Structures are given as C-alpha cells and as structure tokens.
C-alpha cells in the first residue's frame, strides 16, 4: 500500500512505517480501524485524532518546540507523513550506563521540563506523555524531541495540563522505579519555563489525590 514501507512499530492505535518520501526517509503513521468499535464512532475518533495530531504537531513546530516536522496528511487513509528522527527514547536512555548517571539525568529532566513548559504555553496538551514518547535527537547530541501526539488536543484549561503532567508522573513511577528526584527536576524546569506553571503545579497536587481518595464500592 505504501511504497517500500517497512513496519517499525505496532502500537495500540497505529502502525508506524519507515519509508522513502521525496528523497529522504520519513515516518508514516497509519491509524487502523478498530473492529470492536462501532463504525461511526470509530470513524469519528480516528479522523479526529489524525487531524488533531497533525495540527498539534505543526502548532508546536511554529512555536519552535522540537517535534517531528509534518510532511503530509492523508485524511482519507488516516496517514501522517512526518520527519524521521534518529535517536533513542528517554526510556531506553535511562537504562544505559550513561543514562544512570546523576548529571545525565539532571540534563534530560531539565530538557523535558522546559519542552513541556513551552508546549503548555501554546495550549497543546499531549495526552499520552510517557518516556517512550520522548526521543533524544542524535544530530544535536541528545536534545529532547516530543513525539506521538496521537491523543493530543488544544486546551487552555489548567486542569488538562495538570492531568498531562500526572500521566507522565505515573508513567515515570511505573516504568522507572526510584526516579522521583528526576521527576522533581522536571517539574522544577517546567515551573521556570511555563506561563501559568505555578497554577498548573498546584492543580497537579489536586489531581494526584483523585484516584487515591476515591471511595470504592461494588
């Protein structure tokens, strides 16, 4: 279907291919239909997410936040063609000998915090922040790139941005035990780079209490 495409990853939502595109390598993200979902609902969600993802990516790009450049969007076939970034994910990096050092972790944490602060400044909420969705670009010596905006959307609400951070916090604690210090550093850098970051961090404390405080019956 896509010329010379090589499947590199199958996630829960989409298949990711590497393929030649206009004399360069490109990433093609193809969302597939979900058999379990009602066709109308599936079509609504899938096409909305393709458009949202492309919009959020280009919104970040315009604000000079490092994200993959969008080359082309095919809304008929739910495809997004975008820049291929050579590098490893923060998740992979944190288990390398270099990634285990305090200095390296501090640098990455600051990078992440700053990137998230800038992203929230322009009201982009990522929606699925995990360490697998943060890449480190080889050509710049490991600066952080935000990827996979599949669940992202535009919102000015402090609530949404706080939940965004909470998702990352949970991803950190479940995939990287004993990295609380690193997450603190992320929040510190975030606090210094965002416009409304003080209020968002305060809201984050409310969000943290939610799951735990809930009464559970049944």
């Amino acid at each position, binding site marked *: 279907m896509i010329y010379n495409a090589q499947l590199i990853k199958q996630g829960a939502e989409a298949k990711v291919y590497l393929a030649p595109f206009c004399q360069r390598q490109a990433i093609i993200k193809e969302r597939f239909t979900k058999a*379990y979902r009602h066709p*109308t*609902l599936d079509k609504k969600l899938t096409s909305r997410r393709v458009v949202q993802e492309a919009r959020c990516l280009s919104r970040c790009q315009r604000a000079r936040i490092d994200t993959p450049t969008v080359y082309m969007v095919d809304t008929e076939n739910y495809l997004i063609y975008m820049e291929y970034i050579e590098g490893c994910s923060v998740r992979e990096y944190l288990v390398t000998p270099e990634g285990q050092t305090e200095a390296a972790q501090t640098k990455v944490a600051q990078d992440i915090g700053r990137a998230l602060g800038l992203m929230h400044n322009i009201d982009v909420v990522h*929606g699925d922040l995990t360490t697998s969705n943060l890449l480190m670009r080889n050509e710049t010596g490991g600066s952080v790139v935000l990827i996979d905006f599949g669940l992202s959307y535009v919102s000015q609400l402090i609530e949404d941005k706080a939940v965004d951070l909470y998702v990352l916090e949970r991803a950190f604690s479940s995939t990287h035990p004993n990295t609380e210090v690193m997450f603190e550093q992320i929040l510190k850098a975030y606090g210094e780079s965002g416009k409304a970051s003080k209020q968002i961090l305060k809201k984050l404390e409310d969000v943290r209490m939610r799951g735990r405080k809930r009464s559970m019956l049944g």
Partner: protein
Amino acid sequence: MIALGLEGSANKLGVGLIRHDMTTTPPTVTILANIRHTYHPPPGEGFLPKDTAQHHRSHILQLVKDAMAEGNITPKDISVICFTKGPGMGGPLTSVATVARTLALMWNKELVGVNHCVGHIEMGRQITGAENPVVLYVSGGNTQVIAYAEKRYRIFGEALDIAVGNCLDRFARVLNLPNDPAPGYNIEQLAKKGSKLLDLPYTVKGMDVSFSGVLTYIETNAPALLASGEYTAADLCFSLQETVFAMLVETTERAMAHIGSREVLIVGGVGCNKRLQEMMDQMASQRDGKVFATDERFCIDNGIMIAQAGILAYQTGYTTPLEKTWCTQRFRTDEVFVAWRE
C-alpha cells in the same frame, strides 16, 4: 484445607466454600458451595447502605447454613473464615464482618480479611486459568485496568469519577428499568434491540477514563430524544454501551501494548456483559491475544472469590488478628501485598 468466604460489600450477599487439596501441586481446587442473595430496591432507585445492611443481617445466617448443607460441611472441616475487609459500603461490610468474627470465635477459627478487588482477580485467574493477564475490573463501584508486577496488583488506569457500572445503573433509573436481576443486565438486553448510535462524549485521559460527562449528557437529553421519537430507549442503551465499552477496551488495549501482554481477564459485575466480552475479543484477536471471562456465578460479587483470595493468603501464613478485623470503605487494590504469586 477448606475456607468459608463471606461477601457483602454492596447489594449482593454471598457465601462460598472452597477446598484446596494440598496433597497435589498445584493444589486441586474444588468449589463446594457458592450461593448468593441479592437486595433489589424498587425500579428508579439505587440501594441505600442502611437498607442493604438490613438485608444482609436478615439473610446471612440462613445463607451460611445453606452453604454448609450444600457442601456437606461441618464447622470442624473449616480451616479459615474469610470476609471482605473493603472496599465497599460501610454498613453492609460491618454487618458481614460481625458474623465472620462471631463464627470464628464460636468455632475457634482463624480470620482473613480480604480486599474485594483482589478477590475478583484471584477468582478470575482460578476459573479461567489465565497466567498473567491484564485485568479489567469493571463493576458498579470500580473501574480499573490492573496488571501484576512485583508482588502487587498495580493500577494502570482507572475511572476518575464514577464507575462504569454506576453509569449504567443510573441510566437504568432514568429509563425506569427494573433492578432485578440487575439494572446493567436489563440495559444489556434492551441494547440488543437498538441500532441507532447517538453521538456521546468520549473521555479518555491517558490511561484513565471518565464516565460522569457521558452520564450527564445522556440523562439530560434522554427525555427529549425519547419524546420526539428520534431515538428509542433501546437506541440509547445501545449508544451508551457502545461508547463506554469502547473507552474501556481502548485503555485495556493500551495497557496490553505498554506491558507487552497478550492476555486480558475481565472481572466484576459488568464483566458478564456479553457485548463487552465480544468487543474485548475483537480487540484481542486483532493483536493475537486472548480474552478470559467468567459467567455471572463468578463475575458478580460472590462469597467464593473471598474464600479463594483468603485461602491463598492463609496458605502463605497470613491471618488477620481479631482486633484488626475492622472494615474500610477505601481499600486500594495496590495496597495488598501479594505473597502468593511469584
């Protein structure tokens, strides 16, 4: 080794007897009795803690007698008495715990307080034989996506506000559907006749889901939509199920992708919904996975699941001393140390 399990955290009162034959490895498990008595409030109403506790108090002794007769068991055969410590409604929980304590003192038995959610998971694993599944626990009070790691059942995602069963039950009240056998069951049956999909809010926040918005939307709009004849009650039930189940399957799939698991186990009262099982199956087969589900005997709250989780803990040497047999309405799944698993 035989355990008696007493459950009454919500409107179901359950008594179960389970035998683990320790002479084989793994132990051979036999279910000796599994009986239940449900409190049904009138249509349009939910069950209130006070009335539910009253129901449990008036039926539990007979239920224990019936279970002992069915399993052909005398008190001296029982090794341990297990009861639900939480989470659940305070009144109903304490009514049942009081009986557990009394029996333990009378018959001179050890007690084990069990986390209700862990009971569901252990029963599901026992019945289906699922090894290490991602667990979707869906009931009237709980909605959690759970995976086991390092001696705990860890919560990957959960409902941020009301549980999915609560959302369905409350919509059943709007339509004045009977609470017998269960409001969710009646929604499921009605949904089979529906076909027209209403566009409803779809709220997934990362791994978490939210149902309060969907409920408010459908509650507010249902009367007008029904009056105009644009949608039937069946269409609304169908739309609600399709939407909320899609949210659940989506987050479960994401958890599977995240931890690289191919197995899903559905437990809890909503877990016996055939449409949910079917959707989960379609998702799983798209990624070469397998779905494990049980029927209403084990999905809906029961005493046997409490006996099962309790006996597993008891085999590792765990007991709850009498002064610690209090109940708690809030008891998270990940608070339990799972000593019986590798």
